[in-house]
C-alpha cells in the first residue's frame, strides 16, 4: 500500500526535486524533460541568449538615447539586471472559420432634381446592407505564457515577439544551458500540454470571432474548426532591468535572443513637460494666427480649432503623465 508517489526521471531514473509550480520537469542528471505523469517530452525548444551584461548596458544606453532624446536623461544608473528563462507554449494550429452576417453602411449620393429654374442638386444619405459570407483559413502559432494567473512586465508584447522569433528556436539542451545560461533564473511551466492546447484553442476562437465582428455589423453565424499541428514548449531569455534616474526606479525588459527591447519605461523630466506644454501653447497661437488672417472663411477657424484641440489633447497628456512606457 503506497500512499506516496515519488518523482523519478523516466529517462535515467534519477530522483527529482519537484517544485510545486512546475508541470514540466527537467532532470538535473540527464536534462530530459518529462511531464507530471512521467511521460517523456521532446518538443522542448529554447531561444538562445546572445546577450551579456555589457551588451545589456549598450542596449539600455541606445534605447535611452533614441527614445528619450528630448528628455535630457543624463546620469542614469542601472541598478538591477535579472535574466530569466521564461516558459512559453507555442500552439500551432490549422484554423478554419466560416462566418455569415451583414455590413451596414451609409453612402452619400447627389442627384439633380427639377428642371429649368427649379433645377438643383440634392444630397441624400442611403443606408446600404451588404451580405457577408466569408472564410478565414490560416496556419497559426498562438503563444501563451506557461504560468497560471500571472502576468509579466510587457507580457502582450513579448508574446508577439516570441511568435515572430519562434523559428530561430533550437532543441533544448540541458548541458548547454548549464554552460551558457547558468546565471539565468529558470522558470518551468505550470500549465500542462493539454491545458496549453485548450487555452490555445480558446485564443483562436476569440480571435476569429473578433475578426468576424470587425467585418460585420451583425454576425449571424460564426463557426471555427481547427486541427492541432504541434505544441512546443519554448524557453525565451528575458532580461529584466531596473535603472535609476534622479532617485526613481524605471523598468525595462529585453529579449535575450535578438536584443530587442520588449518594453521600457522612460522618465518624464521637467524639460520634457515644458517642451510639450510650449508645443500646446504654440499650436494654439498658430491656430489663432491662421484664423485671424483667414477670418472671412468660416471653415478655417473651425478646422484650426479642432486640430489644436486634438493635438493639444495628447501634448497635454505628455505634460502631466508620471512616466512614459515605450516599446
Amino acid at each position, binding site marked *: 500500500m*503506497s*500512499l*506516496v508517489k*515519488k*518523482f523519478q526521471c523516466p529517462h535515467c531514473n534519477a*530522483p*527529482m*526535486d*519537484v517544485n*510545486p509550480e512546475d508541470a514540466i520537469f527537467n532532470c538535473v542528471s540527464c536534462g530530459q524533460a518529462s511531464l507530471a505523469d512521467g511521460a517523456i517530452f521532446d518538443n522542448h525548444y529554447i531561444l538562445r541568449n546572445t546577450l551579456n551584461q555589457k551588451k545589456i548596458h549598450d542596449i539600455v544606453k541606445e534605447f535611452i538615447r533614441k527614445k528619450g532624446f528630448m528628455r535630457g536623461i543624463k546620469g542614469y544608473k542601472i541598478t538591477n539586471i535579472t535574466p530569466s528563462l521564461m516558459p512559453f507554449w507555442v500552439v500551432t494550429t490549422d484554423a478554419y472559420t466560416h462566418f455569415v452576417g*451583414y*455590413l451596414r453602411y451609409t*453612402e452619400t449620393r447627389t442627384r439633380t432634381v427639377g428642371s429649368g429654374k427649379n433645377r438643383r442638386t440634392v444630397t441624400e444619405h*442611403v*443606408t*446600404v*446592407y451588404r*451580405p457577408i459570407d466569408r472564410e478565414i483559413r490560416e496556419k497559426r502559432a498562438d*503563444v501563451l505564457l506557461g504560468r*497560471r*494567473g*500571472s502576468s509579466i512586465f510587457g507580457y*502582450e508584447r513579448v*508574446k508577439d515577439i516570441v*511568435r515572430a522569433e519562434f523559428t530561430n528556436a533550437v532543441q533544448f539542451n540541458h548541458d548547454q544551458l548549464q554552460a551558457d545560461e547558468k546565471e539565468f533564473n529558470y522558470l518551468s511551466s505550470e500549465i500542462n500540454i493539454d*491545458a496549453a492546447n*485548450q*487555452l490555445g484553442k*480558446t485564443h483562436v*476562437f*476569440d480571435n476569429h470571432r*473578433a475578426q468576424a465582428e470587425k467585418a460585420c455589423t451583425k*454576425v*449571424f*453565424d*460564426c463557426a471555427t474548426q481547427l486541427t492541432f499541428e504541434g505544441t512546443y514548449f519554448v524557453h525565451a531569455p528575458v532580461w529584466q532591468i531596473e535603472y535609476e534616474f*534622479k*532617485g*526613481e*526606479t524605471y523598468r525595462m525588459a529585453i529579449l535575450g535572443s535578438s536584443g530587442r527591447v520588449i518594453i521600457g519605461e522612460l*522618465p*518624464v523630466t521637467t524639460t520634457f*513637460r515644458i517642451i510639450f506644454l510650449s508645443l500646446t501653447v504654440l499650436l*494654439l497661437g498658430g491656430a489663432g494666427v491662421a*484664423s485671424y488672417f483667414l*477670418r*472671412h472663411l*468660416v471653415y*478655417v*477657424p*473651425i478646422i484650426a*480649432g*479642432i486640430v*489644436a*484641440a486634438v493635438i*493639444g*489633447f495628447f501634448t*497635454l*497628456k505628455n505634460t*502631466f503623465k508620471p512616466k512614459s512606457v515605450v516599446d
Partner: protein
Amino acid sequence: MSVRSIMCPNCAAPLELEATQSHVTCPYCSVTSELKKVSELIEHFMLPVVYNVEQIRTELVGDILKHPGVPEDLHKSLKVTKLDLKFFPYFIVTVHLRTEYKGNGEYATFSNRYKSGYRHISTHLKPEQGIFDDTREFIIYAAEDVNNELLNFEISTRGKRYFQALEAEKVKADVVPSIFDLDQAKNEATNQMREIHKGLMLKELAQILEVRDKPDVEGVYLLHIPFYFIEFEAAGKKHEAILDGATGRTVITTVPRETSYWVQVGILTTLFAGIGLAGIFFAIQSTLFNFQYFGIFGAIAGLILAGRTLQLGLKSRYRETQKSRKRRS
C-alpha cells in the same frame, strides 16, 4: 496545526509534514513525494513578503516622485502614520466548459440592389444548434470586503510557495480568510464561464431554447498575496496607498502636490478658458469688430484644452498596473 510523519519512499528517512501539506521534499535524497490521500485539500499558496516596511516606503515615494508638482524632499518628509500588512485571498481556477445549445438563429434576406449592397433587409429565424467548447482561466477575488482596487489589480503569482501560517505571523500580517471554499470557488469560476458562453450564444441565437453544459475544473489553487495598506502625511495632507508586498508595485496611491502646482494648473486652465471665452465673445460680436469668424477657433480649442488641463491636472490617483489594457492578439 497537526503534524504527520511519513517515511521517504526513496531512502526511508523520516519526514514530518503539516496536515494540509500535499508535497514533501526529502532533505536527504531530495526526492519529492506527493501524498495521494490529500487530493481533496486545496492547493494553498502564498507569496512571500519581499519588501519590508522601509523598502515599501521607498517604492511608494519613488512612484509619487514621478509626478509633476510633488514635494521634492519626499524621501525625507513623507511620514507614514499607519501601516497594515494583510494577506488577501485569490483563487486561480482553470475551467473547461462544453455547452451544447439549441434555439433559433437569425438570418437575413436582402432585396433592392444598390451598388455593392442592398437597400432592404429583412431578418428571419431558423432553428440553429451548436457547441462551444473551450478553456479559460479565472482569477477570483475571495475576500469578504470588496476592494475595487484589489479586485482590478493585475496580480502576479511568481515565486509562490506553500502557505505557512507561521510565515505570516513572523511578519505580523493578518491573513484575510477566503469567503469561498474549494467548491464555491469552482462554482464561481464555472458561473463566470457560463456567462461568457451565454454571451456567445446570444450572438449566435435570437432565442435560446435548450442549453446543456458540462463543466470541468482543470485546476484550482488558493493564493494569498501580501498587501501593504499605508496612511501617510505629505505636503500637509493625509493620503492613502496600497502596495503589493511581493512585487513592490503600487496598487493605488493618492498623489500629494505642492501649492505651487495648483497655482500652475490654475493659471493654465484660466489661460485656456480665457481664450475660449474671448473666442465665443468675438464669434458672437463678429460684426461689431469686423473680426468675422476669427473667434471660433478659440471657442473650440480653448474650452477643450481648459477641460483637458483640469481633467489631467486634478487627477490625484495613481495606479501602476491595470487589468483592462488587454490587447487581443
